[in-house]
């Protein structure tokens, strides 16, 4: 076995699930002949044929709505948004059709909506979205965000096998990042939805984060150990809905200080919900203000200096962590 990228891990997950279960199929723009804008499904058309790898017109409502219909039929569609930003054009299908279906009717809708999300790739305001906040607020849909190749594969398999709509946000900055290459287990595995993972242990502070920010947070934690003698725990949430409350509370109870890092904009990001949970449930455990490091409340900018200023990074995390540590 060789080491694979985050992107290859995604590709493997879909391919293996399509081989394993004929109910699984993929639809979206340019997923067939072209193999997807990022080549996630390269070779799929050849292997599975045009009925299971469906090139669609540019019609997000039709893509997501078709997924709902097929899922009702017991299929397990994977609806690809070419960039996750375009989910806004098929929004109603997720909000009103998919997410409420089981609750209303008892009929499950096992489907995945996935696509490249996140910034740092000079994509500008329409190709850099972190759309999670609309959806972790919406009852009836799960939201997962893998940060490693292992999780990319395992969470996607879990999402495909889940009996509910799952929004799977793959971070396109991580797609081909050499540092993320890793060897994956030869055997089939899933990463369960709703379970966070400790990426680095520590007792002085907990960083709650996910997606690309896991790696910035780990870098910051390393620096804090080296330069500040601080043991910072980094908890990768992995799943934003449902949240792994247990893991979150357990960690913060131990460290008593919490820093939340996300790439999504500050106001109303998952950091808000985490702060609310912690300030309600762990009021007596907190030894410092719950601190958030996030993108400013602005659309995602295009020019590199703006993008750099916009995205949270090691530097910004360090500044906030040091302030919190000193509290």
């Amino acid at each position, binding site marked *: 076995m060789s080491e694979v990228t985050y992107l290859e891990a995604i590709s493997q997950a879909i391919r293996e699930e399509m081989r394993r279960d004929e109910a699984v199929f993929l639809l979206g723009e340019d997923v067939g002949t072209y193999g997807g804008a990022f080549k996630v499904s390269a070779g799929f058309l050849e292997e599975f044929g045009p009925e299971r790898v469906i090139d669609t017109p540019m019609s997000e409502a039709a893509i997501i*709505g078709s997924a709902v219909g097929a899922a009702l039929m017991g299929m397990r569609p994977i609806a690809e948004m070419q960039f996750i930003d375009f989910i806004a054009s098929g929004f109603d299908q997720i909000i009103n059709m998919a997410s409420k279906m089981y609750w209303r009717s008892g009929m499950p809708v096992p489907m995945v909506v996935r696509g490249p999300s996140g910034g740092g790739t000079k994509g500008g305001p329409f190709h850099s979205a972190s759309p999670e906040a609309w959806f972790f607020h919406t009852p009836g849909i799960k939201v997962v965000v893998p940060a490693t190749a292992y999780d990319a594969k395992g969470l996607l398999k879990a999402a495909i096998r889940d009996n509910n709509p799952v929004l799977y946000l793959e971070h396109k900055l991580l797609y081909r990042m050499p540092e993320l290459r890793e060897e994956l287990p030869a055997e089939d595995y899933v990463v369960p939805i709703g379970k966070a993972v400790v990426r680095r242990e520590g007792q002085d502070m907990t960083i709650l984060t996910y997606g690309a920010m896991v790696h910035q947070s780990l870098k910051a934690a390393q620096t804090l150990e080296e330069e500040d003698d601080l043991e910072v725990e980094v908890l990768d949430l992995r799943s934003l809905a449902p949240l792994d409350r247990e893991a979150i509370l357990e960690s913060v109870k131990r460290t008593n200080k919490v820093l939340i890092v996300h790439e999504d904009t500050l106001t109303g990001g998952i950091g808000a919900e985490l702060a609310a949970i912690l300030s309600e449930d762990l009021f007596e455990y907190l030894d410092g203000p719950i601190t958030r490091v996030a993108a400013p409340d602005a659309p995602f900018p295009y020019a590199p200096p703006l993008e750099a200023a916009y995205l949270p990074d090691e530097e910004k995390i360090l500044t906030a962590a040091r302030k919190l540590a000193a509290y």
Partner: protein
Amino acid sequence: MGLGREDLLQVYYFMRLTRAMEDRTRTLFLQGRVVGGVYTAQGHEATTVGAAMMLGKDDFIVPQHRDLGMHLVRGTSPRAVMCQWLARGNSPTLGRDGQLHIGDIHHGIAPSISMLGESLPVACGIGLTMKMRKRSTIVLAGFGDGAANTGPFHEALNFASVQKLPIVFLIENNGYAYSTPNNKEFAIENLADRAVAYGIPGETVDGNDVLAVIEAVERAIAHVRSGKGPALLECKTFRVRGHSEADKADYVPKELLAEWLKKDPIQRFERYLSEQGILTPENKAEIEQKVKAVVDDAVRFAEESPAPDPATVADYIFAPDGPIAIVGEPGASDSHYVNAIDTRTGEPFTTISNAPAQLHAPKTVPEEVGRR
């Protein structure tokens, strides 16, 4: 076509049952017993019943808010419908949702939502599944003239035409979308002309003439079932009551309304059946009695049904883990499948009538009733 005597009486029965169910719902509404607004479809019966009667056993409907007729033909339980209006705890939505927002995918009915037009992409997904699973079944998707102006309508018809999905798109053009008349909704005479935009057959038919509807639907189904892709059928009818029972509809010109009331599809069909000697005072009385018994039973059942338990208010958000059956494949109803029973309650689904001593007609009509 060649519908036999019994088939025609069956059509008539369902048209009458539809009307009677709605009349009773309206009474319940006036008595303040319905929760929320009431949307009925007086005048649509020829379209909804006629179209649904032409489906085969394993075909699907994707109905909208005025498609009680389709529902009843396809086996939706009158009890379930009344439980919906009265928001009972044992309604198919367990009191979570109202109106005709119900269905049972194992019996070929997809539940709709209020956002009109959004069911059409869902119909595509059902059609795609049929195509992938190499079935010869089809989908009948009903919707209004208003819904024909939504983005999802366009995306769905286009996608269906590219993929040659087996879907009959049935526009029930009742002249209005709420208070908005056709001429403020679109700038063409016949919505069926939109078929041209998708390279599919389109036809406009008198939606108040059940025999004409049946023939047109038969043509559309023949095309669709042959694998040539979808068809668009526009049934011109009229909403002779308000948009909802709260709407006095005084924006509808009186003469126009009077004209359409004269074209009442049930009366017309009744006249035809009588002239043909098919409907007699005797069997008519019998049918009326049966209709009344079904409606009475449904209302009684609903009224005796419990309210939902408020303690469950946060429940049923996610389906449990476990295997999912592909609907319509052998063994799909095996109860180890998560989608085979209503896992919210652990009981069978309740949308479709399956009481052994059922009062009304069997839940599915014989395969392709019109094809003799």
